[in-house]
């Protein structure tokens, strides 16, 4: 079978828990190569927890996360590290190192994990900073830049190793609608220009509707998959009132649910 035919990420019967407290149970969905895939749901439904499990930070209680045909949590540490090294992650807070400048933050993975020389590192960092529209902020510290810029630097850092999959945890959290739309455009550009698979955790409906090609809705009550498919298709076909309400609050207006 061609590698392109295999889903990039395959989630099978995934249950994730903190100690004995189950957060999500029996999740099943696939993420295809080149997709912009959104994990959505109400606040507290466990979206970020699922992502933590997918990026190797939280072992699941049961079930499998299959990346390019390999069950990442059944693999040994070295294999799992190899798998994770193909990921770039942009965290909700940005997670920039406060003692380092913008340039140093973006260059860090290259300095620590590659043998690239200084000029090649500088070239790559400039390329990535340029992609997110930050050409003149090299020497600024995270405390000297805005929330929107922090998110963009985090995206540049996540992209700097040219990962096969980019994860975003609530990329638009704390941003105004204009900045949020700008960030959506950057994510779309990355996907179109590089073909990188993008997995995004969000409950920002304008982002979901504008950029997602596929999605999964995690139901907070059942702690399981409530709906799976393209967000617009889910909105058209779902009979679940909760999901319909969730998807129509910012898209299509409240009237759609009250009619």
């Amino acid at each position: 079978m061609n590698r392109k035919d295999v889903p990039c990420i395959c989630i099978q019967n995934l249950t994730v828990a903190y100690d004995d407290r189950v957060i999500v149970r029996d999740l099943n969905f696939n993420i295809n190569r080149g997709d912009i895939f959104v994990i959505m749901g109400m606040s507290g439904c466990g979206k970020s927890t699922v992502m933590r499990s997918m990026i190797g930070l939280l072992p699941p209680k049961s079930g499998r996360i299959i990346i390019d045909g390999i069950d990442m949590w059944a693999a040994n540490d070295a294999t799992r590290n190899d798998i994770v090294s193909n990921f770039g992650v942009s965290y909700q807070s940005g997670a920039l190192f406060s003692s380092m400048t913008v340039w140093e933050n973006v260059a860090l993975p290259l300095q620590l994990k590659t043998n690239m020389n200084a000029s090649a590192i500088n070239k790559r960092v400039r390329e990535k900073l340029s992609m997110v529209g930050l050409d003149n902020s090299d020497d600024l510290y995270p405390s000297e830049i805005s929330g929107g810029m922090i998110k963009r630097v985090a995206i540049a850092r996540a992209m700097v190793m040219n990962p096969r999959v980019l994860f975003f945890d609530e990329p638009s959290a704390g941003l105004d609608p204009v900045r949020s739309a700008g960030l959506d455009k950057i994510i779309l550009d990355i996907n179109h220009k590089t073909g990188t698979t993008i997995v995004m955790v969000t409950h920002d409906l304008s982002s979901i509707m504008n950029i997602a090609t596929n999605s999964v809705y995690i139901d907070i009550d059942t702690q399981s998959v409530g709906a799976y498919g393209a967000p617009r298709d889910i909105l058209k076909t779902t009979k679940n009132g909760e999901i319909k309400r969730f998807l129509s609050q910012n898209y299509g207006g409240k009237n759609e649910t009250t009619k």
Partner: protein
Amino acid sequence: MKWREQIFRPKSTVSPKNFRESVGNIAFYAAQHIAQVTRFVLQIFVAIWNMLRGRASLRRIDLKIEIDKAGLRAIPIVCLISFMIGMIMAFVGNMQLKMFGAQIYVAALVAISVVRIMGAIMTGIIMAGRTGAAYAAEIGSMRVNQEIDALQTMGVSPIEFLVLPRVLALTITMPILTIISDIVAIAGGMFVAMTIMNVSMAEYWRMTIDWISFNNFGVGVLHGWLFGWVIAIAGCMCGMRAERTADGIGRATTRAVVAGIVGCVVMTAILTIIFNWLDI
């Protein structure tokens, strides 16, 4: 009372019904804690091994910054406290030795006690409060800010990148700070001797040199070096295990200071027994 229960009851246990159960719980938590500390220390040694093979994710610039923070910037406070302690020891020693007409031995009293143990203990307590707490707060904040998660997903070991430079910095600077503390405390004692006891500087210095042996000096510096390990490990471990809240960072910082100071005292007790046994 409810607040007492909330404070003293271990989080994940049922309240003990009898003495045996509570002893069992305490033993279980102690064993769990010892296992965690041992694992953390082993991870640090693995990181040091990787560094020696040139495979650790350690930047020289970070090590330099940490040496500057833990070493150079700590010198003023170490000097201030050491000078005061030297003065106090000489002053109190003078009062007691005066009864026997043996004031000249104040120099010996200050020199031996400071060089053998007090210099290291004073420096250890200062550094546990200053640098150990800073390590816990810095690393704890990085945990809250998801910076440690970011490192892990970059494939960078937080032990190599965050803990190793701090441990190395403190183990390099602590023996030096201990020697500085010794010198300044002796100067404090000398100041009291010259102003209150009318002892000349030359006489005080001669007595000090006569009484300090290489063994005493070596024991003091060894104490300082081991205290560096204890304080750095306590600070970094508390930071790495901090809960992801502001309150959690506060608790981690408190734990780091307490663990650092208690660790230094326990280490002193162990070394004292060993050196006594070896007749050093």
